[in-house]
């Protein structure tokens, strides 16, 4: 927004906390204004008292060491120089091929450039990439989509060939390629740079599951199947490289990181489920093949049953995150036990969750992401948030809409296990379109 205001003719200074120095500086450069005036207070602002925040303002800029307000006032009034008047115009090219070298040196180069996930990769030779491209009828230069590492980063574009390169690196087989292309076509990145360390969870439905030998049974979530594992890894690598990087401090700011970012793609166990498959719920035919991409994933809870006290247990789990809606993944045993209890459709379970995901208003509004992302909508009168905002602090409020909750059936029936992932369904993408 700072750069847009400058374009509107308003002199601006953007204030950040000091840990965002590198990302703020590189973002300004990529917006064509490398001299954008910026000032830095200490991390964190969250949780600080008004007195402590005043101390930040009256103290030193954490990057320059000069008085913070001096940086701000000079940023607004210092006369412009040539660099301020011209900005920076430049193009970055990505070569198709890397200069020929030994395998050892190329492996070192890929590590040094942060093009891997630090696990060993298959080097993407011309022959291997050509073989991967045989997994689709789409021309290599077809643009698959665009991704960005974060809300404020620029979107990069990638072609079928670039996705194939990353699929080779992940160890995927050509027959998996349509699923990998569908994931890339979602435009959702599994290597989002958010401080929350969020990533993606993806579910494959339809005939392609069996055609390529995906696992929807024992150990479906991994690491016990070549297709599941390498498709998920290919999505992760294609995300980080397709979007132009996932580098800590620059394009990745996740405080804790997320082990699920390595690979989390599995198939729904449609044959053993008593319920409608996910892709059919989203408007596709049972004979269609599709992949559903859930985003924002950062927490998991689990349980077994449903046992006698399942409702109490489930209510506690549903209360875990006021912002992220629950995505339930249940073993077929669990699904059938629910069905035996009269829950004959996924929608019935979803409706029960929506009706029982409730917490006191003061807890709801104290959630950092509810406060940051939902509170402004509530203030603007957007429902149902506006009604929740009117609630007294101890009044119990709903946390999620039924339309945001999803249920998936997977697992090998060795246990009545279920998990709840906090994640939003972003998109269900046709795999058939990428065959």
């Amino acid at each position, binding site marked *: 927004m700072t750069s847009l205001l400058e374009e509107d003719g308003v002199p601006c*200074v953007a204030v950040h906390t000091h840990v965002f120095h590198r990302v703020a500086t590189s973002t300004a450069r990529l917006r064509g204004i490398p001299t954008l005036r910026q000032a830095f207070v200490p991390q964190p602002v969250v949780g600080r008292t008004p007195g402590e925040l005043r101390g930040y303002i009256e103290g030193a800029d954490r990057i320059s060491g000069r008085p913070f307000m001096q940086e701000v006032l000079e940023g607004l009034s210092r006369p412009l120089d040539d660099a301020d008047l011209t900005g920076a115009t430049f193009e970055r090219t990505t070569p198709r091929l890397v200069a020929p070298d030994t395998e050892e040196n190329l492996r070192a180069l890929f590590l040094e450039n942060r093009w891997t996930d630090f696990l060993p990769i298959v080097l993407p030779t011309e022959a291997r990439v050509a073989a991967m491209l045989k997994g689709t009828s789409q021309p290599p230069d077809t643009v698959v989509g665009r991704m960005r590492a974060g809300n404020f980063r620029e979107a990069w574009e990638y072609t079928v060939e670039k996705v194939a*390169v990353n699929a080779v690196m992940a160890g995927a087989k050509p027959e998996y390629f349509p699923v990998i292309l569908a994931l890339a076509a979602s435009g959702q990145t599994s290597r989002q740079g958010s401080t929350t360390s969020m990533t993606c969870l993806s579910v494959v439905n339809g005939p392609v599951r069996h055609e390529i030998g995906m696992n929807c049974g024992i150990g479906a979530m991994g690491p016990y199947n070549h297709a599941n594992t390498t498709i998920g890894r290919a999505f992760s690598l294609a995300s980080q490289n397709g979007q132009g990087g996932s580098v800590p401090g620059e394009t990745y700011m996740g405080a804790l990181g997320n082990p699920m970012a390595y690979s989390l793609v599995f198939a729904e166990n449609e044959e053993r489920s008593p319920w409608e498959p996910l892709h059919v719920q989203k408007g596709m035919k049972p004979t269609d093949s599709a992949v559903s991409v859930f985003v924002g994933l950062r927490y998991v809870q689990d349980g077994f049953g449903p046992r006698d006290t399942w409702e109490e247990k489930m209510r506690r789990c549903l209360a875990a995150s006021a912002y992220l809606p629950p995505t339930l993944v249940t073993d077929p045993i669990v699904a059938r036990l629910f069905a035996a209890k009269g829950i004959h459709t996924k929608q019935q379970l979803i409706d029960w969750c929506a009706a029982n995901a409730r917490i006191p208003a003061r807890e709801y509004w104290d959630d950092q992401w509810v406060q940051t992302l939902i509170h402004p909508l509530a203030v603007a009168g957007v429902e149902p948030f506006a009604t929740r905002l009117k609630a007294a602090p101890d009044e119990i409020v709903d946390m999620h809409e039924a339309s945001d909750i999803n249920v998936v059936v997977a697992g090998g029936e060795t246990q009545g296990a279920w998990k709840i992932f906090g994640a939003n369904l972003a998109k269900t993408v046709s795999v058939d379109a990428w065959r």
Partner: protein
Amino acid sequence: MPDLITVHDPRGYAPKVTGKRLAPRHANLDGKIVYLVDCLFDNSEAFMEQMRQWFAANLPKVNPRVIKPRQSWVDDAEMRAKIASEGSAAILGVGL
């Protein structure tokens, strides 16, 4: 002499960056409206209120006004238009 091999570059294609100029600066801010843009991140409201108080105590001739966009991380063209038409400068912040 070890065998040399040729491999593909895995990166996508970056957009062209077009240079933009900064807005003209004012020699001083006395008598001018400076918008303090609360970017809605957790506790940024308290930060901007402290900045408003700092101006009142230290630069009383400056007129600071706190303003908020309608949503986090989304451009609010209406708010920008208001700042551009009524304000002489803006301070935006602040994250974690």
